[in-house]
């Protein structure tokens, strides 16, 4: 029996703001900024949403699609994020409680910039594969921070996706996973600071591109495959531009990445970005399709996955929860003033 994805769920908050509205506030040509980043709008969490509520929404949809799985058989819950609401007190235990998986299980929060979600997938694959647990849940979710006026403000968005990993009823087998990791300080946020700092152009070539292409080439070599062997490829998507360029460098065609590229519609969901891109691919995936996935987390590392959709996808109750396209269909647009209120940027009187 092979290990893989048994179920998945995805969630994106309903509010959106457009780059030209952000640019209007700072005296910048926001439309041009959006065009350069290949982002037409970004999702904004409501004041009552955070990484916990996003992770729970995704995880509940994931469980709704497998009514035959007893949540008590979930042996591990890992939530990867760079915006855990508490510095100390796990997001993962709240999520586990909300899906009814507690108490005979393990849980932990993971952090590795934008790849903590895929790191959780790897941890679950190991635990399930070794027989230590029956099912594991890996979630990537974020309410991304970007300093006001910074280039990141045009992209930092909110969303996440959850994956149930197991050996029974596998809808997408994970044939192999491997990683490429180095100490590359291209983006960070120090303890107690509100906003991350990035190395500007340094976050491109030696960071994003080197790690993704290295992990991707290691995977292609290990599997003896070529880019054309895959129906879909999902790359980390801090904007629309980077994944489009890295796909071209590796020899993937634009139609191979289009389904898994959501950032142009919703912005950069950090730890949720690759999990959401993969969820959008799975929303329409047919048995036999092969999917190539490479995440990227600053600091820096990439996790690569080679995935094959199985025949079990035919009986999978995908329709028990909304597909991403319907979740994204009816957004509520807000202006910068409401955005500032929602993001808690406005200083309120002391309570």
């Amino acid at each position, binding site marked *: 029996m092979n290990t893989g994805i048994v179920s998945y769920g995805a969630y994106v908050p309903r509010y959106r703001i457009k780059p030209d509205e952000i640019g209007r506030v700072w005296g910048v040509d926001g439309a041009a900024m959006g065009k350069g980043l290949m982002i037409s709008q970004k999702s904004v969490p409501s004041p009552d949403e955070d990484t*916990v*509520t996003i992770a729970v929404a995704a995880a509940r949809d994931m469980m709704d699609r497998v009514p035959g799985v007893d949540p008590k058989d979930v042996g591990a819950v890992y939530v990867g994020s760079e915006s855990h609401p508490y510095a100390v007190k796990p997001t993962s235990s709240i999520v586990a409680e909300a899906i009814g998986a507690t108490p005979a299980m393990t849980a932990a929060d993971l952090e590795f910039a934008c790849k903590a979600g895929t790191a959780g997938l790897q941890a679950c694959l190991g635990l399930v594969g070794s027989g230590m647990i029956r099912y594991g849940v890996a979630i990537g979710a974020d309410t991304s921070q970007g300093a006001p006026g910074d280039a990141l403000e045009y992209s930092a968005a909110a969303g996440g996706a959850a994956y149930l990993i197991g050996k029974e009823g596998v809808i997408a087998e994970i044939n192999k996973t491997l990683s490429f990791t180095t100490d590359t300080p291209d983006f960070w946020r120090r303890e107690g600071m509100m906003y991350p700092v990035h190395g500007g152009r340094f976050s491109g070539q030696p960071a994003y591109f080197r790690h993704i292409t290295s992990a991707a080439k290691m995977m292609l070599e290990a599997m003896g495959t070529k880019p054309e062997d895959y129906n879909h490829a999902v790359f980390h998507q801090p904007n629309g531009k980077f994944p489009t360029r890295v796909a071209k460098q590796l020899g993937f065609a634009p139609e191979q990445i289009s389904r898994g590229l959501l950032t142009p519609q919703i912005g950069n969901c950090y730890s949720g970005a690759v999990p959401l891109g993969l969820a959008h691919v799975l929303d329409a995936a047919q048995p036999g399709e092969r999917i190539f996935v490479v995440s990227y987390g600053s600091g820096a590392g990439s996790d690569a996955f080679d995935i094959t959709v199985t025949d079990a996808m035919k009986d999978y109750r995908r329709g028990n929860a909304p597909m991403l396209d319907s979740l994204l269909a009816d957004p509520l647009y807000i202006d910068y003033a409401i955005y500032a209120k929602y993001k808690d940027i406005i200083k309120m009187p002391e309570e």
Partner: protein
Amino acid sequence: MAMVVAREWREIPGRYNLIGTKCGCCGRIFFPSRAFCPDCRRASIGKMEEFPLNRRGRIYSYTVIHGSEGFNARMTPYAVAMVLNDDGVMLEAQLVDVDLSKIEIGMRVRAVLRKLDEDGDAGVIHYGFKFVPDE
């Protein structure tokens, strides 16, 4: 709405997962959960069963709040709805992610987990159910 941590913790099953109780004698469902049925009284002792309520229902009535303090100041204006869930139990919570001009009595909604409040910048964050439109 500052809550003591121990009380917050005790109420988690109800606030996260709408866990109520059902009387084993008369079948009446209670939310929040009760250890005792006020109709069957002594006969209900030891017969109250845990009952997870359906997360879906319809708006029975609602109002819009324009003035609030603390955490909810950032939510104003917001709607609070009475929802008759699909088990026939009346629930009350905020109705969010909705265009306030498009709320209608009878509208289908479902419960999701959201932040209800937070005890300042250093205190505990309270999570619980709110309703969103169920298309």
